[in-house]
């Protein structure tokens, strides 16, 4: 431990990495500061009401609540939908598939995890909205539910493959010890492997939620873009923070308060996603220790 720290201090490469890290850190902080500065005018005018207000009328008032609620509901739904599928898929891949098949599944998942949001969005528009509309007999298929479902599909590959990494990294000594006591494969997976990979799985889920929170285009295409507090009705149109930003940023640039309000929305999102991502990485790191 000491030796490695000592070595890193002497190594010139170490300094380069440290410098790069510092640059990233400074840029991230700079971005945060920029967002804060840009949102000061609207926050000074409205204060907390910016986050609590439920009306967004350009020129009158800017209330972020509909977007915040929309984001939370859509992401929450996506998480609920994705968890059982991702977890059982990860367990199956890690514990039951033979190595060649496992590699194939991992390859496909990693490929799917990299597919851009717009592709998922197009698929959503082509199939999901129509499907949801017909299946649930709605007037309009562009709902918060559709967006949540689409996001669940989008983040599934990433959560599955990262959770699988966590499960697979559990040393097989533990599996053998459990099986030598007469536990079945399923009991071993649930009682030995799963508990030991909880931090890694939590990390994977947090990263997935972070991605879902920030997804713009795919959500924009299917969410219906209606700024109102959705109550508890998932089957109505709504709006999320990124979809709002995506729709209005171009027209609002340089227009004073409207722009400031969007920046304040952006800052809110930035903060939440930063916290999610940071803690996600923290958990994954803890798992691999």
């Amino acid at each position, binding site marked *: 431990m000491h030796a490695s720290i000592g070595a890193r201090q002497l190594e010139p490469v170490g300094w380069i990495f440290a410098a790069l890290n510092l640059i990233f850190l400074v840029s991230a902080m700079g971005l945060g500061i920029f967002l804060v500065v840009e949102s000061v005018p609207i926050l000074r005018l409205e204060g907390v009401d910016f986050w609590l207000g439920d009306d967004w009328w350009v020129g009158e008032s800017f209330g972020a609540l509909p977007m915040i609620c929309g984001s939370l509901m859509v992401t929450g739904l996506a998480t609920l939908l994705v968890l059982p599928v991702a977890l059982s898929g990860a367990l199956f891949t890690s514990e039951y598939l*033979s190595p060649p098949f496992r590699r194939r599944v991992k390859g496909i998942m990693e490929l799917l995890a990299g597919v851009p949001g717009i592709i998922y969005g197009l698929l959503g528009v082509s199939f999901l909205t129509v499907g949801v509309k017909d299946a649930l007999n709605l007037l309009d298929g562009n709902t918060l539910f559709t967006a949540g479902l689409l996001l669940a599909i989008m983040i599934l590959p990433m959560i599955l493959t990262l959770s699988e990494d966590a499960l697979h990294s559990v040393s097989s000594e533990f599996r053998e*010890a459990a099986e*030598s006591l*007469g*536990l079945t494969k399923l*009991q071993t997976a649930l009682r030995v492997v799963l508990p*030991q990979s909880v931090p890694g799985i939590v990390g994977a889920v947090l990263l997935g939620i972070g991605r879902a929170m920030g997804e713009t285009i795919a959500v924009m295409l299917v969410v219906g873009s209606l700024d109102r507090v959705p109550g508890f009705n998932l089957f109505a149109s709504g709006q999320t923070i990124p979809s709002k930003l995506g729709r209005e940023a171009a027209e609002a640039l340089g227009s004073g308060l409207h722009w400031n309000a969007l920046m304040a929305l952006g800052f809110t999102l930035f903060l939440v996603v930063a916290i999610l991502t940071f803690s996600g990485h923290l958990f994954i790191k803890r798992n691999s220790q």
Partner: protein
Amino acid sequence: MIQFKNFVAAFGGRKVIRALTFNLPANSITAIIGASGSGKTTLLRALCRMNDRVKNFRVEGNVLIDGMDIYRPDTDVYALRRNVGLVFQKPCVFPKSIFDNAVFGVKEKMHRKEYPDLVEKVLREVFLWEEVKDRLGEKATTLSQGQQQRLTLARTLAVGPQVLLMDEPTSSLDPKSTAAIEKLVQSLKSRHTILWVTHQHDQAHSIADKVLIIENGQIAPFETPVARPEQSSSFTRVLQNVQEYPE
């Protein structure tokens, strides 16, 4: 009673155990000696079918435990493993409490009210109880290597196996714990059939009824322990050896 009939164990084309035929009587201790890589661990693992998951592992011939061929396709592997307990060369405790480790193998089989008694019983059997009775809730990973080894033995005993396979159980123990485990194994003989892998000839001879030497995948003829100074612990024996063969 364990019977090997022309038993072959192989990884792919490489036979590690070839044409093994011998019987182990019930309630006896058999020590297995052999050079590193001679197939001792493979033999033990074959007895509880722990190599089932190894892809190119295959067996020929028969192994019978109490007359039942354990490699018959209709064998209940999980029941077999509860009946044939394996203590690994390297102790592997679960990152749970000492208590939970001790009852790990009986969780589905027993009511939780019976746990405390069982834990005390098996921990006493492996001479660990006095050391850990005040810290049963602590993580088992905080125990020393030797304590962990005894805990894994207790964990196996808790399942109630009839056959006990021990793969160098004392390799990470100090002389005192080694002597304790040796004594323990001798006390277990009345209820279990024990196979004990070791590298130490003197240990094999002092504890076992029979000593089996594995060479090139085959068994040198049974060797009955010779010159068996009773009551001497392996520690004193080591000392004696040192005196007998000065460097």
